[in-house]
């Protein structure tokens, strides 16, 4: 975090609204709003987007926080690939 100046560009409520909408969208797709493979892939990608939003806006992590931010970004990429790989290889 920079010592001076605001670190938060987005209001918490706005981030919450995006996270909630993405969660409901993933749920609706899984309930049959889209073909199975599209719905599952979207659910995984939406989860990745949500996690990234939490890391940036709630956990307050920026790319200046090395090695933590790159490490968590790598974690997210690996987990996303694990879920996509597990699903598409079935």
């Amino acid at each position, binding site marked *: 975090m920079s010592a001076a100046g605001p670190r938060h560009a987005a209001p918490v409520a706005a981030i*919450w609204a995006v996270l909630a909408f993405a969660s409901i969208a993933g749920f609706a797709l*899984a309930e049959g709003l889209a073909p*199975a493979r599209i719905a599952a892939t979207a659910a995984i990608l939406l989860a990745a987007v949500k996690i990234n939003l*939490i890391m940036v806006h*709630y956990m*307050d992590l920026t790319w200046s926080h090395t090695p933590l931010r790159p490490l968590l970004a790598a*974690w997210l990429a690996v987990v996303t690939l694990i879920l996509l790989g*597990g*699903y598409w290889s*079935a």
Partner: protein
Amino acid sequence: MTATTAPDRASMATLPGDSGVWFFIVADMCAFAVFFLVFSAGRAAEPALYETSRRMLDLRFGLANTLILLTSGAFMAQAARTAQRGDWQRTRTLLIVTMITGLPFGLSKALEWSAKMAHGVTLTTNEFFTYYFIFTGVHFLHFAIGIAVLIVLMRTATDTAKPADTRLRWIEAGGAYWHMVDLLWIVLFAMLYLLRAA
């Protein structure tokens, strides 16, 4: 009496919270990544079993739990921002709201697990449910620890015996842990509930 002095941000390390807590968070997340890998490998090996089992879950519980944790996490984020401004009384109030909005997650999990068990679905039913109960159980343990952390933070927020920088560090570190509980659930929700097979 509540201190309203804003912490001296320039004198603090740049990382929010505490580096030791972040080390724990990364280690814990890596352990969960192994869980996700094991589950995904199992799903790839037996897709029919996993899909049949997934259909036995109530997706509404999964969504409700997600929204509960997201809402609680939003209040936690606001609490940390308020602490950064040095408004400790409001920080404490927001931490209380964080806990109150998070507690229904525990109730919801208890209802979901008991409904499953009432239908004879247990840890030993099949591989999917073994993972389901273990992963959600371990996650629930993290949730319970998080509630305890929030209680400590509520006391810390208005503890004028502690310097403002120390209080802020604790609140940011506890907040990072609470957000980890949230983001791990987001993966579990997608992995266990939402991956509908073709």
